[in-house]
């Protein structure tokens, strides 16, 4: 999820950009060229921001991994990020990473990149899959026609990478030229005459402009006087009004024709298409009934691995046995003998001690849960199941005015709301993005919290888990339903590529899990320590008692929880999983009845998102949005919790 390499500002005079369609292996090749790991997963839209790394084989050169682009002129946010690279970066070479089995699509982009006048190499990746389907490409003929180096690769096995590096040295400005229909050619020469110099050729800039590329538009706005800009705008408008097809469509159709001719020349069927178990399973997973059965199995396995194995067995082992009986007594004794002043010692090992609370929570409770979750999640990501889940859940998201694609940020949200917020870039429009962010803030617990919640509920009864699930789903659906009606704009229907099911590569899953754990601990431990310190100060100054008293009507009266639970909710402000952990310990001490467990779990699940995510939403969607979301979510959580309590008591559940 998170993989910012602490912003190493690479000071290089030139760079190599990896550009290509989504899910073709750019990030794998980036790893091969730089040694930096960035998240690799089997769904389109894994990478949503730029990552730079020093090229191992080229001195003073940075390699840039970019989000995949389906269409150029760019249309979505993440495509714009990539288009921006073309304007802003001192590009020495573009490496297009292409999918060999989808040659037509790949070449479409190749032609476009070739027009830019930047040295270009085409890494034809996924050769293994092309081969498996019995299609192959006459590479020599292709090279001859494109006058661009074409290197076959199987990135996941490191095949062809050495040749790619070798060819990068030899790339030259491509001389490929497409003649567009007269109408377009006239427009190009008119626009060209008004253009300043840029990184890319005037011709291709003009083409992007005519296709209404937002990145090109904003670059031009900055680099030409507003009068000229206005003239160009008028010219383009006029062009749009004459003729049926927009200039963008005309340009695209011309390119498609060229590509068709080229593909007919170089693409051959050399073997039978092979339909293996993967294909069979892939289709099964999206069938109405059998697909749901598979989903149920997947969820059960996930529940078992994270909820029972991680949150149950592992936590028990670490919390009770390792920390409770071995480490903590030792540390406590040690600290008391080293530091004779009780209040200072308490700061480290007391009730709200940095070690006994902060570190123990983080290491004994959270760590095992998130480790198992990240591992299971990594496997799921790499298998290609997630896009299929999007198809299966499309109808549900429809209720909330979204399409199934929203499942991707939502599932990512289980790991990290911050990254999930970034991933909303893959949604088609602003409205969809905002909707997903609201739902993320409201109803998606992070995995640590989820693990604790599941662990606690499981220890009560299955019906407790079901009640919790139903309440959360109902709340999510109704809020989504309402929000979809309030927000202006139209729902965009599902349109999603289903990548082939692939066998997860264990090394990738492991690297990814470790990278995520490292990031997680780095983010969590300081916050946990800070939270503990605040609690400590509040307790010693008597502020805590005051607060507990103050929130008594809400927590004890309305929710019917013990007054001490206030402290847990207080922690929840910092991180939801922190708050859940507090409740977990209360339950372990036998302080909570079944009704209280369910009510507190529902409330903490719906509770305001953690500080980090409020911050992230603020940064990407504006502070007003962020505040508004918080202002809605907070009362809602307590409202639902309280209502649930009255309902459960009324029907006499759990007594």
């Amino acid at each position, binding site marked *: 999820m998170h993989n910012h390499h602490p912003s190493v500002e690479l000071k290089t005079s030139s760079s190599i950009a990896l550009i290509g369609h989504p899910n073709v292996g750019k990030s794998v090749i980036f790893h091969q060229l730089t040694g930096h790991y960035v998240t690799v997963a089997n769904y389109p839209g894994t990478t949503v921001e730029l990552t730079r790394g020093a090229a191992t084989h080229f001195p003073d050169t940075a390699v840039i991994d970019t989000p995949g682009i389906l269409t150029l002129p760019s249309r979505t946010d993440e495509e714009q990020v990539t288009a921006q690279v073309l304007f802003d970066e001192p590009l020495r070479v573009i490496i297009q990473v292409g999918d060999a089995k989808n040659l037509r699509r790949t070449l479409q982009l190749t032609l476009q990149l070739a027009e830019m006048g930047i040295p270009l190499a085409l890494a034809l990746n996924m*050769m*293994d899959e092309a*081969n498996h389907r*019995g299609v*192959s490409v006459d590479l020599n003929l292709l090279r001859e026609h494109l006058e661009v180096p074409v290197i*076959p690769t199987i990135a996941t096995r490191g*095949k*062809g990478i050495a040749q790619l590096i070798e060819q990068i040295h030899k790339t030259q400005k491509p001389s490929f030229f497409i003649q567009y229909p007269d109408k377009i050619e006239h427009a190009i020469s008119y626009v060209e005459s008004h253009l300043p110099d840029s990184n890319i050729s005037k011709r291709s800039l003009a083409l992007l402009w005519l296709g209404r590329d937002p990145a090109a538009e904003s670059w031009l706005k900055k680099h030409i006087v507003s009068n000229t800009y206005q003239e160009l705008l008028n010219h383009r408008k006029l062009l749009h009004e004459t003729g049926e097809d927009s200039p963008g469509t005309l340009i695209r159709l011309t390119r498609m024709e060229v590509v068709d001719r080229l593909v007919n020349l170089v693409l*051959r*069927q*050399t*073997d*039978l298409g*092979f*339909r*293996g*178990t993967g294909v*069979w399973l892939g289709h099964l997973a999206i069938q109405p009934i059998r697909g749901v059965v598979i989903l149920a199995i997947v969820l059960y396995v996930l529940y078992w691995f994270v909820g029972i194995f991680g949150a149950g067995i592992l936590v028990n082992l670490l919390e009770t046995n390792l920390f409770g009986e071995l480490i903590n007594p030792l540390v406590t004794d040690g600290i008391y003998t080293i530091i004779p002043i009780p209040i200072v010692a308490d700061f480290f090992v007391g009730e709200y001690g940095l070690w006994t609370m902060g570190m123990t929570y983080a290491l004994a409770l959270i760590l095992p849960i998130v480790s198992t979750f990240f591992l299971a999640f990594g496997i799921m990501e790499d298998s290609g199941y997630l896009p299929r889940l999007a198809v299966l859940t499309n109808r549900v998201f429809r209720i909330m005015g979204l399409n199934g694609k929203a499942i991707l940020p939502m599932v990512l949200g289980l790991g990290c709301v911050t990254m999930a917020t970034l991933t909303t870039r893959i949604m088609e429009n602003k409205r969809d993005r905002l909707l997903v962010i609201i739902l993320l803030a409201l109803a998606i617990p992070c995995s640590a919290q989820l693990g604790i919640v599941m662990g606690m509920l499981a220890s009560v009864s299955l019906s407790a888990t079901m009640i919790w699930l139903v309440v959360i789903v109902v709340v999510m659906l109704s809020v989504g339903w309402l929000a979809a009606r309030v927000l202006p704009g139209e729902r965009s229907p599902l349109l999603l590529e289903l990548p082939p099911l692939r066998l997860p590569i264990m090394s990738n899953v492991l690297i990814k899990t470790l990278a995520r754990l490292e990031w997680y601990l780095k983010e969590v431990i300081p916050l946990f320590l800070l939270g503990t310190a605040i609690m400590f100060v509040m307790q010693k100054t008597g502020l805590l008692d005051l607060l507990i008293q103050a929130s008594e009507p809400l927590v004890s009266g309305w929710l019917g929880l013990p007054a001490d639970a206030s402290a847990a909710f207080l922690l929840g402000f910092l991180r939801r999983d922190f708050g859940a952990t507090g409740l977990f310990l209360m339950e372990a001490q036998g302080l909570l009845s079944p009704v209280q467990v369910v009510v507190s779990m529902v409330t903490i699940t719906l509770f305001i998102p953690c500080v980090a995510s409020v911050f992230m939403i603020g940064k990407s969607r504006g502070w007003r949005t962020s505040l508004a979301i918080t202002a809605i979510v907070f009362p809602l959580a307590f409202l639902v919790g309280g209502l649930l309590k009255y309902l459960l008591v009324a029907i006499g559940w759990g007594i």
Partner: protein
Amino acid sequence: MSVQLTKGESAEMYIKAIGELTLEEALVPISTLASRLGISPVSATEMVHRIVEQGLVEHERYKGVRLTETGKRRAMLVLRRHRLWERFLTDKLKLPWEDVHDLACRLEHAVGTEVIDALVDFLDEPSSCPHGNPIPNSEGEFEYSDGVQLNTLRQGDEGVILRIHPESRDVLSFLAQKRIKPGAALSVIDVDDFDGLLTISINGVDQIIGQRIASHIVVAA
């Protein structure tokens, strides 16, 4: 023109497929059997259980299936009928080489021994099917002549195509399209070390074929 197969016929189909896939004593994994028949592994497993009960095959869990002595004999006789029909359909009815395999699959279950005996006489006791595979004798015995799979050849090797094995509609029509048939002489011009594609010269033309399809072509080197 739909032909609904009865239970017995599909059992024959299964044992024939197992018979074709068996190399000496080896077990045939159910997944291999399923992909050979173009069905899901689940239905294959189900059917295998049924024919195990009939005593035609033995099933070793997680490993695969093997024909029993009775099963083997039955399978070879089905194979005999199948290949005889193929001969008949190509030689006498002049039907396309690539279509007769599927047609014979439907005829092989249909008739009794008298017809088959008559067919043998009518065809003058042919020794192999149009795709080069030997026809078992009335005792169910036959032998494959020595040959190697085309995908094991190296650059510069030459040979003559003996047979196409295992046969399937997809394979046969692919090969028919490229005019690759038994009896033709070929030489390997190049084997691509990246993706294993073979460039072969056959009937005076260069053809590029993949490893998988090449493994269906048996040549006498």
